[in-house]
């Protein structure tokens, strides 16, 4: 209940800030551009696809690559959205409102996290509407579509949890944004560096750490519980760390 109150306040404040609206606008423009470019290629290659057996459909050709590219864009904008959740409140000195109210640290962090996640889901819905509109005229593989979309949400939730943790470490939102961005970028780089490592075990480990690798499997329609759990574990780890960090503020150093 308290979590929900804090989450809705967070979401409300986000929508009252010009930052959130400009992010929504700019990102939607980029999503639309990628979507249309993908759609254009699909229409161009359609005659050739028609001759092929087992040819990729509209979902595979448009939605999946769109979601994969959007993951990178989410990576770039999430630090901007999560940066102020804790750090901003510290800077405004408004954190003590929550700390002296009868709510637990866990409720505060979960509220913040779900508030941000709510905003990100809005973005993801706006993204999904575009390929879904193709369903009016053509046929879509909804199983594949929603597996990919759910994968995207899980990925984005993990990004957000990392952002919340980074925000809980500092008083300056910009520092939180830079460090979140650094970690997300690093996780992405692990992905391609894994191809360059000769040692099979090492490359396997790097691959496992890479978030995008787990997302790719879901984007292909392969919904495995291992990947699902991977995202849940990453998110909850960083949220637990945030709770501990926020609690640490009170304690003796």
């Amino acid at each position, binding site marked *: 209940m*308290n979590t929900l*109150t*804090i989450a809705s*306040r967070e979401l*409300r*404040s986000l929508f*009252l*800030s010009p930052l959130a609206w400009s992010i929504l606008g700019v990102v939607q423009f980029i999503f639309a551009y990628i979507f249309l470019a993908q759609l254009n290629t699909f229409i161009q290659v359609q005659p050739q696809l028609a001759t092929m057996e087992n040819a990729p459909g509209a979902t595979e050709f448009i939605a999946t690559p769109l979601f994969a590219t959007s993951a990178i864009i989410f990576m770039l904008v999430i630090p901007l959205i999560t940066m102020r959740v804790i750090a901003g409140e510290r800077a*405004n*000195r*408004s*954190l*003590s*409102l*929550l*700390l*002296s*109210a*009868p*709510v*637990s640290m866990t409720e505060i962090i979960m509220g913040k996290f779900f508030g941000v996640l709510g905003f990100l889901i809005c973005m993801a819905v706006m993204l999904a509407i575009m390929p879904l509109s193709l369903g009016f005229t053509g046929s879509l593989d909804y199983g594949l579509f929603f597996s990919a979309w759910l994968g995207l949400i899980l990925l984005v939730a993990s990004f957000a949890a990392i952002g919340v943790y980074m925000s809980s470490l500092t008083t300056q939102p910009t520092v939180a944004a830079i460090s979140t961005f650094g970690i997300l970028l690093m996780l992405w780089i692990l992905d391609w560096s894994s191809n360059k490592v000769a040692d099979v075990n090492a490359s396997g480990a790097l691959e496992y750490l890479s978030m995008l690798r787990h997302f790719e499997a879901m984007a292909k329609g392969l919904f495995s519980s291992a990947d699902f759990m991977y995202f849940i574990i990453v998110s909850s780890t960083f949220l637990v760390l945030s709770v501990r960090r926020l609690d640490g503020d*009170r*304690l*003796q*150093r």
Partner: protein
Amino acid sequence: MSIEHLTRHYGNLKAVEAVNFDLRRGEVLGFLGPNGAGKSTTMQMITGNLAPTAGKIIINGIDLLDQPKMAKAEIGYLPEQPPLYVELSVEEYLIFCAKINGIRRANQAAAINRAIDRCGLGEVKSRLISNLSKGYQQRVGIAQAIIHNPSIVILDEPTVGLDPIQIREIRKLIRELGKEHSVILSTHILPEVQMTCDRVQIINKGQLVFSDSIECLNQSMQATSLIAQFETAPSMDALKAINNVESIEDLGNNRLRIHYTESPAKQIAITAVNANWGLTELSPEQKSLEQIFVEITSSESTLEQSIKDVA
């Protein structure tokens, strides 16, 4: 509420050292101290924003450290800087505060209206907090602290940065709050304490150095000297001859400060009229709270110094 042996260290700095005090129901307690004395740290500990290094905080019989949620529900806290979400309107902000303080949905509207009324926010309730003046923002902060009708309201320097009219209004509000709630008021402005509080505590360098009722404080402030002004120079010997006069200080221009053990004002007036000195002023000189404050805080530090010297 009772505070036992409350201690907080920041590294080697002992911000608050073994502070004990009680707060009775319906009492306004003034918490005085120079800057950096440990006032805010104490308040932050009482409100659960900081964990004490040692000590106990009992609120209405509930231990703050053992059952923080239950204890915090009994406390309203206004930090030095009001914790506001400036992008919300006053009403939206108070709705949020009501919810996180666990007020039931059915009682929310009533609680919010009551807080708005008491803090005089009726005219501005639909305006954005960021557009309000500092005084109104401070009132929103107070509204936030009393919205859940806590038994203890803790206000940390509530009148800092306000203009004299706003200060007067806030003090009036604090006195009203004192009728229903127990209030702890931290400040370094002494007349504020004289005007609003029932009891005074002075903290210096993390230690409680004075704790008494405001009457006792006023008593210790009672005059021990008179200021007299004459048109023609009086004879010192004649004045010194008056009963109870201990010593006379010449302030120039026929202005004298007369120290006494028991007020000789009447006798001075009679003597002055008889001798035709042209008495134009005769007034008791009150020790100001400032003087007492400096005395208490400085004597304590000299005491500490002497202890150190002995050691």
